[in-house]
């Protein structure tokens, strides 16, 4: 009895240990490509780890960047922690991460704190991730839809409730709109997409949109879904649904043309980049701080005003020369044509224009150890 129970216990624990000892090998895709693999060009071989944190909106793009960057600098690991914009800025200010990704620029209280955190007292804020937000709809028999800002506001404020409303018909002469109730779909979680969309409505729709810009959707009672993918699947799941989502995720859904000035603009990456380029830079924040005031109410032809802009926030001067080198090199990659293309493939973002690249280049070139 004694012997047999002991041996049973041994077998038992061996079995348990065996299950846990499956740790033999590492992930197949994580072994570094090895020396001299990719065309590193003229830059020197770097190594180390770069830590960032912030908005989850640019997480997919960041994945594209870090994948592409590992081809340029195989020795560098880029970690990006999607803690949210506020959390990213907070961790950057506290010195926990080397750079932050944020859907909003630093506010008046954060800017001095950031200048204090950085060795030379200068901060860079680069609008490196531009994503057009499309108004997507699922309406049988209607593919082309033109919507002026006031109509978009009316629909999402649940005052325009059927598709054959005269206001919609006025924007779409000749289209046969069905007598179907409109189901507006919004994000249920707090998000940069919602914040930018409400900001657009508040700026462009005027009286028609009585709510303040907010990361939380302000109108109760609509269909709500979690995340961009949730909105897209809710819109595709119903008939007569309308929602807002990153253009790249729109898939098969109809995408509305938005009224800008006298014309209706189809959301495209180029049109989105154009509105960012034409926006005013906020003055008085420092030489390398390219925070912008988006021209939501633009009347410029060919500009698409509903965009989400996400910044990279970091220091011009770091205490540690290794970190400074890594940040400069990585940001240089991010703003390069190759880097923007990688983000466009991974996240469907709009590549920044050459003018923006020139401007960002001045900041990247200035990054030093101090």
């Amino acid at each position, binding site marked *: 009895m004694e012997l047999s129970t002991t041996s049973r216990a041994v077998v038992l624990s061996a079995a348990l240990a065996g299950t846990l000892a499956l740790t033999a090998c590492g992930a197949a895709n994580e072994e570094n490509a090895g020396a001299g693999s990719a065309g590193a060009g003229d830059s020197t071989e770097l190594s180390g780890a770069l830590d960032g944190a912030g908005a989850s909106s640019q997480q997919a793009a960041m994945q594209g960047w870090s994948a592409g960057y590992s081809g340029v600098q195989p020795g560098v690991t880029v970690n990006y922690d999607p803690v949210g914009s506020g959390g990213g800025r907070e961790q950057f200010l506290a010195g926990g991460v080397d750079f932050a990704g944020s859907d909003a620029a630093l506010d008046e209280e954060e800017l001095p704190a950031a200048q204090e955190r950085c060795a030379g007292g200068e901060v860079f804020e680069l609008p490196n991730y531009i994503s057009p937000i499309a108004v997507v709809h699922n309406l049988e028999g209607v593919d082309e839809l033109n919507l002026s800002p006031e109509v978009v506001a009316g629909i999402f404020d649940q005052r325009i409730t059927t598709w054959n409303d005269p206001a919609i018909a006025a924007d779409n002469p000749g289209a046969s709109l069905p007598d179907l109730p409109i189901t507006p779909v919004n994000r249920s979680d707090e998000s940069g997409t919602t914040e930018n969309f409400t900001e657009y409505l508040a700026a462009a729709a005027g009286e028609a949109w009585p709510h303040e810009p907010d990361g939380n959707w302000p109108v109760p009672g609509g269909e709500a*879904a979690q995340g961009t993918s949730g909105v897209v699947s809710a819109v595709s799941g119903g008939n007569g649904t309308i929602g807002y989502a990153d253009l790249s995720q729109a898939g098969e859904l109809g995408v509305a043309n938005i009224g800008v000035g006298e014309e209706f603009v189809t959301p495209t990456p180029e049109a989105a980049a154009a509105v960012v380029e034409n926006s005013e830079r906020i003055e008085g924040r420092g030489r390398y701080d390219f925070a912008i005031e988006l021209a939501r109410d633009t009347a410029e032809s060919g500009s698409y005003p509903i965009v989400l802009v996400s910044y990279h926030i970091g220091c011009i001067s770091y205490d540690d020369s290794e970190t400074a080198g890594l940040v400069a090199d990585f940001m240089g990659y991010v703003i390069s044509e190759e880097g923007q293309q990688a983000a466009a493939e991974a996240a469907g973002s709009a590549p920044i224009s050459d003018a923006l690249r020139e401007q960002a280049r001045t900041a990247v070139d200035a990054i030093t150890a101090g």
Partner: protein
Amino acid sequence: MSSTRTTPPSRAGTGRSVRRPGDRVFAGTAKGAGILILVILAGVAAFLVVEAVPALTAPAEEIPGDGGLASYVAPLVFGTLLAAVIALLVATPLAVAIALFIGYYAPRRLAQGLGYLVDLLAAIPSIVYGFWGIFWLAPKLVPLFEWLERTLGFIPLFAGPASTTGRTMLTTGLVLAVMILPIVSAISREVFLQVPSLHREAALALGATRWEMIRMAVLPYGRSGVIGGSMLGLGRALGETMAVAIVLSVSGGITFNLISSGNPSTIAANIALEFPESSGIDINTLIASGLALFVITLAVNVLARAIVNRRAEFSGAN
């Protein structure tokens, strides 16, 4: 657990055994572990309170929604209770029926296997229920919601407009009902098994049909066990997180409308959705709402355990 339950060891041996250093250390460790349980439970409460305090004392404008903590938490508490109550109303009769089926209707040979099948429902991770709820159940319920709106729309519960995606409070309640079914039916099964066979046989000998025997002998005996079990299920449903977070369409505040897309969230789902991207005072607010959930479930569980335990003492089975 199984059929042979020997009487618990008598305490008589304690005094007689020889006291040695090894004994003292071992007994001390065992006692320490037991007391650690008390400490953990107290710790859960204490740490939640400490982290919730900044939200409790913060000015109302800093709380998300600008209305202060109470108006932030109130719709969540309402949503939590509503979803759990729907789950309970659906699950309890079903669970009792299942327990009766396994105990008195199914062929003896199959009964254990069927019981195991029901228990399997408890083994499925809640996130998988979320996947199932949003991809399988919700679309299938849309026609039902439309029918409810058409025929019963005069009742505020079904006022509509019916959701076109099916991600409603009623769907959520049904998913939760499936999730708490195993625990309610397991406890019901246990108390039904404790019904003295003499009672049952006496009823049958008097010429009762099977249903009459159950109604006269089994149900009155098992009533408090069923109540206790369903309250434990209620506790589960109140705290269930991921399935609700995935299935429910959250927008708007307090409403009894069960089939529209504007629903209040539940405390647990709201924490899961908001926490990963929160910082600062928002986190404290979420922890304060978690504290409210802790207090509610604690009260429900204490009550449920008290009912179940009283039953156990009273029954004096075997």
